[in-house]
């Protein structure tokens, strides 16, 4: 087994750009996630470049290229057999790959819901891209001019995580966007699964997605091979306010954990170090105490402290929004997180209602209508309290936005220029859009409209290079609220999680080693991985497990070799199905089943002679045969029932005989004095 980490989370963080790996199991090459780092978009100037385009002077004025190290690495590897996708964002780069001939037979596994959201996101991305194409025209042949100059350098430095080596810098991850047919092609290669559904790849690997808790449809993958079982653990939440919580119980059987949650590297955790101190203490005591039982770890995991903080943050955002509205300003919320949008929608409606403010809420995106309607029809993918809304008879919907829509307070439009928008438009208002790079025309238009008024509010996600992102809109008087959101496991929960899962081996990011010290005296071992390096992973089982049906077992003819060992020759068909090898009795049982085919050790001439004589065979050593030293060739002459000669050397015996029945008699006698099977 081999693991190569091909990309660590980009500047968008774990949520928008999860890490990506190449994993080879029993000869099968798997790509784990294939995101695109969209933060690179900030280096491009928004279109159209109006007169008031602020300080966009040194931004790249061209059709954008997109940064996907994962896609580049997989392409360089010459194709993969399958791709396991853990989130909608983890599939954004896939159409780059599936259009290549070496990926013609690649199969993509992704949860039903992540595929749906992913497709909408890719559609949205292509729609935004087409705005650039409309403005600049299609790329002419060859790489664009900006790719050679100073601008490129700027672009790359905007991708904070990339170490720029001036010499031999690899530009392969920088790609022109895929087309709509590419996207269709990608979706055709996709096999969607539900949580807990087992699918079999190649007859050999059993794949199973379990909820990861971070976002609707996000999953942890179990990869079960014949000799090892691996958990691919991307960013995970144990208690969520919208998505089904991480189902860690289903991961307990796996031997190896590929820990791929880099979220604790994020800025957010640093800020919260103080906040988490209490919990840290609790965790330390847990770690120190001997014989802490599993329940305490489970309690630590399922404590809803993280989500309580998240709800607090959402409430804070809502209070800022309501302040802006009160002062007569409008609010733009370009946030690409579905869960956060749904939660803000729910909270803001309460906040506005309680302060008796009536302002329209707009969601302007190609995908808005679809997203809003399907989120109310996917109870299986939601957290337990929301599922209860389906089972209890009091609630009419799974999310609060259904009510908002019904009451005519929430409006959904694909574009700013959509029919009917003007009629509904009223300022101040609240506008959601899914593009967080601020390069989509919706965000661009509204920012141009609102940036000069300090009563207005822009809610941005932290981690984005705000300065670069807002450059085209400077000087800006608009208030900017930078928020951070939960993106994965908190450091303090890592060791309790591992204690619950009880793996044999943990593959851990080298980068996280210092932030998240490995547990001393842990019953599992660690292997550290870092980007671009390939590590060998030992199998947990040396042998394969094979099922032997009772009817085949009963047909065996075992031979006792000594007190402790018996052997039997086995003839069967080996079937491989759903990750399990089974020996099946062949339809035509050959009559040679008692024939020995393998012999070992030396044949004692004297014992063979008496064995032959016991069978009524007349035989003798030749006259000139003397009982020479061991290792010499000896012969036995047979005269009746047929004529034959047996020659014995230490490593082989030859029977010279023309008569079949005599040969058989000799063979039987020989078998009785020689080890064989």
């Amino acid at each position, binding site marked *: 087994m081999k693991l190569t980490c091909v990309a660590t989370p980009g500047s968008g963080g774990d949520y928008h750009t999860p890490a990506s790996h190449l994993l080879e199991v029993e000869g099968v090459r798997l790509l784990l996630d294939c995101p695109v780092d969209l933060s690179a978009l900030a280096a491009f100037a928004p279109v159209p470049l109006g007169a008031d385009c602020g300080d966009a002077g040194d931004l790249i004025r061209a059709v954008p290229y997109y940064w996907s190290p994962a896609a580049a690495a997989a392409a360089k590897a010459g194709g993969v057999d399958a791709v396991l996708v853990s989130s909608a964002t983890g599939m954004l780069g896939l159409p780059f790959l599936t259009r290549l001939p070496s990926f013609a037979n690649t199969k993509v596994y992704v949860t039903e819901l992540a595929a749906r959201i992913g497709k909408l996101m890719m559609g949205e991305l292509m729609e935004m891209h087409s705005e650039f194409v409309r403005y600049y025209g299609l790329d002419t042949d060859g790489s664009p001019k900006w790719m050679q100059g100073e601008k490129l350098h700027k672009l790359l430095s905007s991708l904070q995580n990339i170490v720029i080596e001036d010499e031999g810098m690899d530009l392969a991850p920088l790609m022109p966007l895929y087309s709509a047919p590419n996207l269709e092609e990608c979706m055709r290669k996709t096999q969607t*699964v*539900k*949580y*807990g*559904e087992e699918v079999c790849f190649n*007859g*050999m690997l059993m794949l199973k997605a379990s909820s990861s808790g971070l976002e609707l449809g996000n999953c942890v993958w179990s990869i079960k091979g014949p000799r090892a079982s691996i958990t691919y653990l991307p960013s995970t939440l144990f208690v969520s306010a919208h998505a089904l919580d991480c189902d860690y119980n*289903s991961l307990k059987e796996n031997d190896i954990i590929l820990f791929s949650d880099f979220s604790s590297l994020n800025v957010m955790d640093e800020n919260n170090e103080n906040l988490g101190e209490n919990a840290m203490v609790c965790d330390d005591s847990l770690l120190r105490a001997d014989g802490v039982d599993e329940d305490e770890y489970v309690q630590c995991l399922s404590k809803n402290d993280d989500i309580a903080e998240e709800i607090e943050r959402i409430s804070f955002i809502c209070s800022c929004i309501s302040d802006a509205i009160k002062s007569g300003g409008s609010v733009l919320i370009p946030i690409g997180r579905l869960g956060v949008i749904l939660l803000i929608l729910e909270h803001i409606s309460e906040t506005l209602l309680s302060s008796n403010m009536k302002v329209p809420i707009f969601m302007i995106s190609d995908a808005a209508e*679809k997203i809003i*309607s399907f989120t109310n*029809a996917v*109870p*299986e993918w939601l957290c337990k309290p929301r599922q209860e809304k*389906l089972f209890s*008879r009091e609630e009419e919907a799974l999310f609060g936005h259904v009510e908002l829509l019904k009451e005519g307070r929430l409006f959904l439009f694909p574009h700013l220029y959509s029919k009917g928008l003007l009629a509904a438009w009223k300022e101040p208002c609240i506008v959601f859009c899914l593009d967080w790079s601020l390069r989509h025309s919706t965000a661009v238009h509204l920012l141009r409209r609102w940036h000069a008024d300090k009563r207005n509010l822009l809610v941005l996600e932290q981690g984005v290079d705000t300065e670069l992102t807002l450059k085209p809109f400077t000087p800006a008087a608009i208030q900017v609220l930078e928020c951070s959101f939960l993106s994965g496991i908190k450091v303090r929960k890592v060791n309790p999680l591992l204690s619950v899962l009880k793996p044999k081996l943990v593959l851990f990011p080298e980068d996280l080693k210092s932030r998240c010290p490995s547990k001393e005296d842990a019953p599992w071992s660690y292997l550290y991985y870092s980007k671009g390096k390939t590590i060998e992973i030992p199998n947990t*089982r040396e*042998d*394969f*497990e*094979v*099922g*032997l*049906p009772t009817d085949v*077992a009963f047909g*065996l003819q075992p031979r006792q070799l000594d*007190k402790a*060992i018996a*052997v*039997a*020759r*086995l*003839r*069967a068909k*080996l*079937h*491989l199905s*759903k990750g399990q*090898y089974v020996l099946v009795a062949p*339809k035509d049982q050959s009559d040679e089943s008692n024939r020995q*085919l*393998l*012999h*070992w050790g030396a044949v004692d001439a004297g014992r063979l002679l008496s064995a032959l004589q016991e069978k009524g065979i007349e035989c003798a050593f*030749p006259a*000139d045969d003397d009982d020479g030293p061991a290792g010499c060739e000896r*012969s036995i002459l047979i005269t009746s029932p047929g*004529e034959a*000669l047996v*020659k014995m050397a230490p*490593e*082989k*015996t030859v*029977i*010279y*005989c023309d008569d079949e029945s005599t*040969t058989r008699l000799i*063979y039987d006698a*020989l078998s009785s004095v020689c080890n*064989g*099977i």
Partner: protein
Amino acid sequence: MFDCGMHMGHHDHQRYPDFARILAATPGADFTSAISCVVITHFHLDHIGALPYFTEVCGYHGPIYMTYPTKALAPLMLEDYRKVMVDHRGEEEQYSYEDIQNCMKKVIPLDLKQTIQVDRELVIRAYYAGHVLGAAMIYAKVGDAALVYTGDYNMTPDRHLGAAQIDHLKLDLLITESTYAKTVRDSKHAREREFLKAVHKCVSGGGKVLIPAFALGRAQELCILLDDYWERMNLKIPIYFSAGLTIQANMYYKMLIGWTSQKIKDSYTVHNPFDFKHVCDFQRSFINDPGPCVLFATPGMISGGFSLEVFKRWAPSEKNLVTLPGYCVAGTIGHKLMSGKPTRIDLDKETHIDVRCQIHQLSFSPHTDSKGIMDLTEFLSPSHVILVHGEKPQMSFLKERIESELGMPCYYPANNETVSIPTTKNLKISATDKFIASCSTSQARDSTQKSNLICGNHLSGANGDEKLAEGILLMEKSKDAKILCEDELLQLLGAEGHSLQFEPLLHSRIGEAETDIVDDLASE
């Protein structure tokens, strides 16, 4: 325990399963320890009606599984039934409203295809069964022994539900429903057209259409059919739902759209097909309003309640139309209307109804017909088949067909009868890398997953032309048995191989026993 239903025809202790038999089979145990889990296939009362009694009165506390829609919709059915039982018939209640609530709280919801490890040995998985929203076929596996229990299923898609879908599975046993063990049905479209024609003719003549229906299932199916027809024909005549239950049911259907047919799911990207355009709430005062309309009213067989109330008013006019479901229990007005053409129905000694209205009998059934049962059985190719949920003579007919045409032993045990089925058992042994490599696994890799009529994963490597694997099974004391290759055995034993050759005897050889042996190819 698969399903925990009740018999609608009985009003005494026979209405519930004989739970005592569970305890009789495992002496000394209580219900909770005697059963690993209860799995409910769908929300119909003959499959779930006794569940609150079993958990709240008998005291079963183990896990209960059912799909998301079943968990959401079952309480409506149970409460409706409880009300009819207690309020209308004045019977002693078997379980209370709280019992239903408490019972449902214990239910673990299942998603389709989700593999659930119930305990160390038992694994269950639900497959789409059609029939009603949330209906599932259940695959269960203990060790190597596996079976499928179908519950009720439909092999042809209807307006709002898809056809049953299952993977190729290696099964020791298939337990299938056999409601229509002998019937083969014709095309559904003709029957739908007939229904729509009858309704359209009635309303265009100014008549009223009464569609008695149970709240869940057929009502949504017919509603989609009508709403769609109204849209196409640009009809403005109102379609009403009798208040309460059905509107509430539609709300559930909206959240559970993922469980409907592919066609509905595809059409639903923005507009929810259960947001009916032409359907509105019915007010009691509308009964005597003039003008045409279509009304859905519960209960389905006009056995009482609102549908009876409306029937009394509308039946005397020949302009009106009453549609009846395919099956009505004896004793209901629906049953009386179906058998013969009565012109007068006596409700009791004092009240009678003159029936002059048109009667249209619906023949949509959400059950598979006998062809569907045969198709599913052939597709799954189990080692044994058991027929349930049918009538004896028809089951006997189907048993003969399954045994003669498919060559599978088939049973249809009566209540309280036990059938023993032999199951597969595999011993777990290990095999060396070399042995596995020596067997050609490449075929398994090449065989791509084939889709079949019911779609799903094909057993790979199940084709008959693999190479025979040959190895040595090594059994050592206090170690697992292991298969290895010949040379690995020699290496393990620390022994040298001893080759055995057969050569023709040349007479000259006997004389010159000392000469070297010719290194000929071994021949036999």
